[in-house]
């Protein structure tokens, strides 16, 4: 009943559209489907070796965690007054990386950036896969992980940690939905092309047949989710920064921490995305889809974030220096010329100097160039989180309690384990779902090109073009 009315309402509009919409070359479509489903169809020896290697690293981390649970946090390098260390650094870092996906993909979708099509999926997966590691690191940090449920049973809403619990939960749910929605048409393709796995893809495809009505609904839902996800993503990292900003501790108690952390998050997120894309195109031979132009454009975004990051870092430290309050100065000196100076300046080189040199010139904004910049940025941003968390704790307000922190093998193993497990989850995802959106590329060819052209024509004065060229 409703189907009929919907069709009736839509078809006249369809008829008024220019008849000659471009069509995808069927031969190319076949090739694309083969290319993008190949990682799912085949399990090579490379895959098996990688999984085994990653599992080995994870196993060490599991052993480290068991050691920690049995003996207590005494097996870490934490002490008094340095109560937080690598785990909390990882928490901030991973939540930051998780901004790669959803936020970037949402911005690109809302801006109708056509070059987004082959990259949104790989970005969104990073978000969903990595956010769990952010949460996990807080749990690793707990002295009594068995009591974690107290956060729900006895939640104290004045605590920024509880705000984190709320915003991260909303973010995880909404970004999972946001990953799943554009996945539905591709799941349907898997269902139709991989008959052996029909039991798995069938229910997940929700009966997708690609009718006009379904497509219309899906696109509407995706736009709504993109709008919802944007403020949620910004709130998540703002609240993470408030865990520090709301305290009275020197150099944590800062009003710009909210935006500073959000910028840092997007910055490290794009870097992580570029690294993931480079690995994907190499491992699965996707050079034809993730082209140098995509790296070039992402590199430009990264360049903008490099400049923004520097601006915030500079403003933050200059303000502390000029204020000259003894407690703040003690921490600042420790960072800039003291024991944490090697880490601090490595961070500046990794986050600003190297990326700036590489990304500012179009000539070096190649795949290799952007990947090098992204690797240094990822290292630099981890160091940034570390030099925010630790130097403040080493220099508490009571000057008699100066401390020192050197992480132990337990913390380093857990760090390595988190990276390995993230890589493993990401790898497994690419073996189950197409990592490049098949239907969105097809849509780009069949509708995107004409739509963009129509839009460009709309920007120009009426009648400026010779008739018949519209």
């Amino acid at each position: 009943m409703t189907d009929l009315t919907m069709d009736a309402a839509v078809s006249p509009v369809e008829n008024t559209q220019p008849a000659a919409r471009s069509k995808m070359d069927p031969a190319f479509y076949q090739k694309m489907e083969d290319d993008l489903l190949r990682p799912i169809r085949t399990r090579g020896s490379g895959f098996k070796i990688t999984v085994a290697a990653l599992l080995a690293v994870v196993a060490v981390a599991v052993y480290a965690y068991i050691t920690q649970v049995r003996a207590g946090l005494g097996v870490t390098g934490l002490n008094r007054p340095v109560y937080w260390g690598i785990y909390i650094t990882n928490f901030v870092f991973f939540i930051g990386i998780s901004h790669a996906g959803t936020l970037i993909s949402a911005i690109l979708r809302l801006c109708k950036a056509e070059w987004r099509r082959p990259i949104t999926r790989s970005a969104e997966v990073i978000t969903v896969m990595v956010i769990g590691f952010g949460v996990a690191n807080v749990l690793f940090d707990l002295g009594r992980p068995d009591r974690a449920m107290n956060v729900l049973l006895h939640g104290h809403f004045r605590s920024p940690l509880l705000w984190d619990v709320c915003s991260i939960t909303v973010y995880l749910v909404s970004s999972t939905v946001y990953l799943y929605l554009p996945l539905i048409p591709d799941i349907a393709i898997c269902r139709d092309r991989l008959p052996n796995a029909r039991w798995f893809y069938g229910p997940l495809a929700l009966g997708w047949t690609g009718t006009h009505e379904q497509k219309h609904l899906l696109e509407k839902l995706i736009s709504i989710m993109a709008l919802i996800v944007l403020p949620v993503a910004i709130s998540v990292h703002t609240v993470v920064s408030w865990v520090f900003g709301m305290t009275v501790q020197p150099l944590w108690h800062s009003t710009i921490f909210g935006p500073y952390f959000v910028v840092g998050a997007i910055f490290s997120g794009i870097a992580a995305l570029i690294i993931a894309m480079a690995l994907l195109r190499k491992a699965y031979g996707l050079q034809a889809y993730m082209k140098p132009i995509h790296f070039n454009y992402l590199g430009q975004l990264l360049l903008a974030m490099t400049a923004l990051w520097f601006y915030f870092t500079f403003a933050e430290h200059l303000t502390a220096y000029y204020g000259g309050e003894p407690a703040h100065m003690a921490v600042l000196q420790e960072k800039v010329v003291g024991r944490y100076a090697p880490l601090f300046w490595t961070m500046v080189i990794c986050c600003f100097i190297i990326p700036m040199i590489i990304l500012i010139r179009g000539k070096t904004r190649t795949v290799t160039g952007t990947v090098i910049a992204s690797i240094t940025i990822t290292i630099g941003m981890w160091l940034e989180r570390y030099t925010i968390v630790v130097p403040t704790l080493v220099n508490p307000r009571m000057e008699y309690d100066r401390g020192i922190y050197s992480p132990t093998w337990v913390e380093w193993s857990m760090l390595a384990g988190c990276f390995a497990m993230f890589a493993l989850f990401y790898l497994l995802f690419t073996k189950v779902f197409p990592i490049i959106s098949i239907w969105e590329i097809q849509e780009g060819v069949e509708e995107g090109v004409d739509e963009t052209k129509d839009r460009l024509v709309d920007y120009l004065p009426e009648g400026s073009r010779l008739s018949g060229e519209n």
Partner: protein
Amino acid sequence: MPKWGMVIDLARCNGCSACTVACKSENNVPISEPVDVEERRFFAWLEVIEHEPEHGSGAGRTRFMPRPCMHCDNPPCVVVCPVSATKLDRDGIVSQIYDRCIGCRYCTNNCPYTAKYFNWRTPEWPEEMKQGLNPDVSVRPKGTVEKCTFCHHRLQRVSDQANAEDREIREGEFSVACAEVCPTQAIAFGDLDNPESTVARLAKSNRSFTELEDLGTEPKVHYLREDY
């Protein structure tokens, strides 16, 4: 409702650390081995800090500052606890709920006085000392935060007694272990709201100050400055 507070006379403190020992014994505070000191994980709910001022008239002389929990009226540790395991009681004592603490150490990080302690391991006592543990005070499990409670268990007993006799708690009836043992009587303890009490009188002295006053935490532990 009384407002319990402490005044520590820095001119009288000679750094003997009897307060630390009394506190440890009264409150089942874990023993610290040399390795704990080395790893910066020693426990002392009341630590006597030794320092040598670099400037001023006291420069070059070793000074002592006993530091318990300041029991702030505006405690930064309480607001950040995600599970309300640390609270400001009606009588002004900042208390810890050991059974609820998840060990996130957010409170220890937001305490500007570094007055909170974390159980890095399961606390252990030599066999002969286990007999001496105070049955009124719980032994804290590994992974939880603890700190000076102004000997809260003593207050419990005293206020039960006062309630049974239908009267207020008398001046001097409730005191803390550290104040009782101090040989130079450097530590005074009592009701800051009772103008007759010693602590109220001393807290008004022109030598009186509180640590990190400008943070607005309103500590209920006051210090009396040394006059040289």
